[in-house]
């Protein structure tokens, strides 16, 4: 399990990393926690001449909460998302989701930036970021730009990020109301058979806003505006929930794999989404 040979670089600023990426070209890749990339390199499904390690770049680390806006550096680990008290206060759905990713050892090194930038449909954070309507900061040779999480994912492993860009941060408004990240997996460490991120705001008995996205049920995470809209204005009666689930299921396109056939995944997706909606509503 030895990967192909590569040259290793450890720049100390985003500018230096971007410069290296541009100079070294398509045979180079940045590495964050490496827990997606290293296994692929060991299997020789990824073969790179240069690895640009981001671990020494302090600007990519940390969680800032200012005026209701949360900004998280790309190199922030899942473990840090779980243990950060201010984030738990401002956006507890991050912790709930991060705790369901992989296992403790992987969460110590796995990063938010790697999870969202990789474009693996199995990753949990992309669906959550779409649910939160997060924005991704990309830095390249021509400067910085923002791309909405809902516009970022094009196909499995294909995203709006250009090869010479680095995803440096994720930002979103602190969510209001109830939340849930619900995930069905075969065992600890597995990707989701189905997972759902749900945010619901309520005023008395009425739902005033809802956001719903699903994980690992298509080539990309699947945000469904229709599913959220089906809940708004309702009291989350059975009919409204059924309409939301139907809308979300019509947006997904699961593929048969070792987690089960399509019919099974559609069924599990419905069950998981219903549970997520119930939990989010009970917390709203």
């Amino acid at each position, binding site marked *: 399990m030895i990967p192909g040979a590569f040259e290793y670089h*450890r720049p100390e600023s985003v500018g230096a990393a971007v410069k290296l990426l541009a100079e070294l070209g398509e045979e180079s890749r940045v590495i964050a926690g*490496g827990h997606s990339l290293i296994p692929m390199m060991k299997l020789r499904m990824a073969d790179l001449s240069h690895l640009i390690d981001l671990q020494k770049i302090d600007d990519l680390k940390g969680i800032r909460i200012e005026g209701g806006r949360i900004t998280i550096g790309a190199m922030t680990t899942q473990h840090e998302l779980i243990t950060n008290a201010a984030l738990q206060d401002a956006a507890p759905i991050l912790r709930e989701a991060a705790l369901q990713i992989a296992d*403790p*050892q992987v969460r*110590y090194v796995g990063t938010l930036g790697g999870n969202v930038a990789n474009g693996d449909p199995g990753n949990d954070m992309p669906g959550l970021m779409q649910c939160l309507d997060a924005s991704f900061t990309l830095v390249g040779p021509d400067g910085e730009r923002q791309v909405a999480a809902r516009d970022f994912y094009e196909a499995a492993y294909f995203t709006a990020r250009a090869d010479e860009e680095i995803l440096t941060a994720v930002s979103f408004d602190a969510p209001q109301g109830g939340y849930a990240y619900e995930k069905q997996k075969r065992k600890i*460490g597995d990707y989701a058979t189905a997972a759902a991120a749900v945010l619901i705001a309520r005023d008395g008995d009425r739902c005033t806003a809802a956001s719903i996205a699903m994980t690992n049920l298509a080539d990309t995470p699947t945000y469904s505006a229709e599913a959220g809209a089906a809940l708004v204005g309702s009291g989350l009666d059975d009919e409204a929930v059924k309409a939301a689930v139907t809308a979300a299921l019509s947006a997904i396109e699961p593929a048969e794999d070792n987690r089960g056939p399509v019919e099974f995944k559609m069924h599990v997706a419905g069950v998981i989404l219903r549970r997520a909606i119930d939990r989010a509503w009970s917390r709203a």
Partner: protein
Amino acid sequence: MAKTHLKMTVNGQAVETLAEPRELLIHVLREKLGIKGPHIGCETSHCGACTVDMDGKSVKACTVFAAQADGADVTTIEGLGGPDNLHVLQEMFREHHGLQCGYCTPGMITRAHRLLQENPNPSEEEVRFGMAGNLCRCTGYQNIVKAILAAAAEMAAAKEAAQ
């Protein structure tokens, strides 16, 4: 490919070695430094037999490149205790029969050590959740969990006695 000069602290000792950047930390520890406590189980980041402590985090040494570990502070099972001075976790694994073949044990204990550093008084559920990255094919986990809970109690008692 040119080798790079790695400097690490391993079990409190400053060490230096040459390695290709692509070499995995587990291979550097075992083959270059002769530290054979961390085992190679699956080599695919699933089983946790290669778990070591790196800069205060439990990591799977099969999924860290040597070059990434340059400058790191690494602790392996050898750094926790030895035959003449067993760590309380090692004592409790022996006491509660927390191992059968023993292959997963160094990773289990190294991981449990970090878990108890972060949460000195865990519930059974917290132990099971915190140990979820380590697989054992012999024990059914029952006695591993017992051993870790017993070690937590021993450590708490020792701390209290010291005060």
